[in-house]
Every structure is written in C-alpha cells, then in structure tokens.
C-alpha cells in the first residue's frame, strides 16, 4: 500500500462473494469497484474468493456425479433382505452369494455371445459442404466419422486435376487425396427451384480427430481455396 493511503473500512467477504457471483446491483458495484481499484488487500481477498468459487464449482460438480463417502452397494444386496425378511441371515447371505455367482455367469455368457456375433457396422460418411461466407460460423463435423467433402469448383470448367489436402492448425498434413468433379444430376438445369452446379467431392476416411483443420483445394497443383473445418 503506498504511503498515506489506508482505508478505515473494507467490504465484507460476503459482499465480495456476491460481487464475484455478479449478483450486486449497480449502486453497490460502483463504490466496491472504486475501493478495489485502490485497496490491495481487497484485491487479494477477491482473487482468493474467485479461486475458491472455481474450485467449489468443480468440486461440487464432481460430487454431483459420484457422491463421496457413499459406500457402493450391489443392488441385489439391498434387494435380498427386503424379499426374504424371515429367513435366517446366514442362509439369506449364502443364497444371495450363490445367486450372485449364477447371475454373473449368465451375464458373462450373454456378453460373450454378443461379442462373437458382433460385426463391425460401417459408419456412413457425413456429407460436409465446404462453403465460406464473410463472417459466417466455422464449418463443423463430427469426430471420427468418415467425411464426404463437397466443394465448389468455382467457375472453372477445365477438366483439371483437383486435389484436396487437409492440414492441422499447426500446418501438419493429415490427409491428402483426389477430389472428383461430379456433374449436376439435372445436367446443369433447375432442381427444386435451384440452379444446380457441378461439385467436387472427396471421401475422407478414416475420420479426423478433434481439432481445427484447414482444407486446401488445389487445381492443377495451384492452391485455389482454403477453408476452416472444426472437428468436434
């Protein structure tokens, strides 16, 4: 604290907490913020409160998923005494024990049968139209799914070689392949009230991991466009 500036009163911890939660009304915020601008001890207190709130938020969020100290009980242990209240406890426990092993065996057999009969199901490629407009949102695609990229070849009508390259945000190439020019189904006419145009398509398999990528379109090895693609 610089010389000659010491405050006689400070805001309470509760008030700072309410401020951190952004619950204070305007007329309360102004004097508090003015004080905070010049009082280093209150700055420290607020920083501590901010940190505590974040920790508590995370801590309580985690306990919401897995309650602490609550001993995990098998559902059948809770079920048995209710259904067999008159049986001797030792007999009930033994019965329950045997029953549990039988149930576990049955579940294991069922799981094995499912695994053996399992055939990998091919995932359908997700069509992604790569178009960009000024100020538009980033194009997103799901993680791990094969992609069917669709690009606009522009006004070029030459039967050029098209190539697509996908690089990470750091510039590392992760996919490279040919893009095929697909003529419009209607032969360039109107379909559903819209003028159809040729499209470039490329099947990207396997799917990409989470992150931001750049899709570069080359026409006869000359870079034509670059579009951002966010995999989520």
């Amino acid at each position, binding site marked *: 604290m*610089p*010389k*000659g*500036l*010491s*405050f*006689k*009163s*400070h*805001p*309470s*911890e*509760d*008030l700072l907490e*309410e401020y951190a*939660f952004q*619950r204070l009304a305007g*007329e*309360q915020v*102004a*004097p*508090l*913020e*003015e*004080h*905070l*601008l*010049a009082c*280093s*001890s209150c*700055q420290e207190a607020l*920083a501590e409160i*901010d*940190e*505590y709130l974040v*920790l*508590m*938020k*995370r*801590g*309580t*969020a*985690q*306990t*919401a998923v897995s*309650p*602490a*100290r*609550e001993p995990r009980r098998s559902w059948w242990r809770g079920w048995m005494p209710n259904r067999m209240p008159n049986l001797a406890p030792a007999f009930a426990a033994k019965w329950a024990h045997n029953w549990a092993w039988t149930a576990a065996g049955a579940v294991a057999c069922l799981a094995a049968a499912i695994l053996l009969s399992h055939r990998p199901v091919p995932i359908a490629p997700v069509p992604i139209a790569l178009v*960009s407009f*000024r*100020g538009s949102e*980033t194009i997103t695609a799901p993680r791990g799914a094969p992609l069917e990229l669709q690009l606009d070849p522009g006004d070029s009508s030459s039967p050029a070689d098209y190539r697509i390259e996908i690089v990470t*945000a750091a*510039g590392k190439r992760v996919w490279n392949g040919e893009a095929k020019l697909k003529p419009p189904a209607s032969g360039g006419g109107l379909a559903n009230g819209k003028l159809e145009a040729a499209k470039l398509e490329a099947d990207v398999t396997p799917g990409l991991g989470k992150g*931001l990528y*750049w899709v570069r379109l080359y026409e006869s090895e000359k870079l034509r466009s*670059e*579009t*951002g693609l966010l995999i989520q």
Partner: protein
Amino acid sequence: MARSSKSTPGVAPPPPSDPYIDPDSEVYAGFVDLVARIRSGQTEGITELYEIFVTGIRFYLCRQLGAQELEDKVHDTFLTVLQAIQRGEVREPERLMGFVRTVVRRHVAAHIEKMMTVRRDQTGLDPNIRVADPHDNPEEKAARHQRLTLIRQVLAELDEKDREVLKRFYLYEQSQEQICEEMELTETQFRLLKSRAKARFGELGKKKLANKQNANIAMRISASSAH
C-alpha cells in the same frame, strides 16, 4: 478495520450488514492534494498516482479481459487517467477513484468492441493468428489440482445434506434465501456451514503446506548429514 467476516471454525460470520462503504474522507481529501500536485507538474505526484492505482487497474483489467497483452492495456489506461488529470478534466478530485473506474470501464468496453469488430470482419479463419494459450502452466496446473483435491476432501467429510447446500450455492448459484427456504435452513445454519467448509479447506491447505515444509527440512538435514 479488519474484514468483517473472516471464517472461523464453528463461528458463523455475521450477516452482511453493508451495503458497503463508508466514504473515507481522509482518503478523499488526499486525492484533492494529489490531483493538485500532478496538475502543477510535480513528478512525485505521478509516481504516487501510479503506486496507488496501477495494481488495481491491472487487477480489474486482468479479471475482465484476461492476461493477454495486459501490460499494454494497463499502460494505456494509466496514461489516459494521467493525461486527463494534467488537462484538468477531473472536476471533482475527491472523486478520483470514481473517475479512474470510469476510465478503466471505458477501456474494457472499447477493447471488447474492438475484438468483436475484428472477429466480425475476419473474412476467414486466418491460420497465422496467434492466440495466447489460456491454460495454466504446469506449475499452476499442479497447484490447482492440489487445491481441488483438498476441496474434494472437504466435501467428502460433509454429509449429503450439507453437500447439497454447497452444491446449490456454488454450482447452481442459487441465492442464500432460496436455499434456506427450500432446504428449511436458518440463515445462521447456512452461513455456519459455508464458513466451516471454507475454514476446513484453509486448515487442510495449511496442514499440507506444513507437511511439505517438514519434508523439505528433513531432506535438507539428511542431505547435509550425508556429506
């Protein structure tokens, strides 16, 4: 005066009787003198102004905008305040803290608007843009992890109802009144629970720190006896 509600185990802090804040007439009178000195060109006045406000400005800006390019923003803001004082634009010098706050808030608003404009006008995603990594560095990460472990320990020591109260307050950000009403608690019970949890957190933290220091001392002793 000490802060009015320091957490003490077992003792509920008093309810917030403020809305803060007593106008501190001595501090306000000091500002009148400070502004006069800066206007008359005394450099020690500028130094004093810097000492009083620069930490607070940095704190406010960092809290609102993050740590990226923080020092530049602090410098710009301080310069605006200083130049305004030198030009005689501070009409009520005793309200200097309010003036500084207004300037800082304007800088924050201007910065946010600028960022919005930049984002809106970007024609595409420029791969050359460098964005500061908002994540903690490894040391901060480890410290935070340690504190989070302590919080979990505190929460684990509570019973289900107490945990529910804290969850409602910190996670779902329900007000004290709402929680007390829905969970049939008195204000004192609520405040006691909150302050106990916080005190326990501090206690565990201190214990952990003490254990660490003891371990360090033991290591130093064993290292020196080995020579």
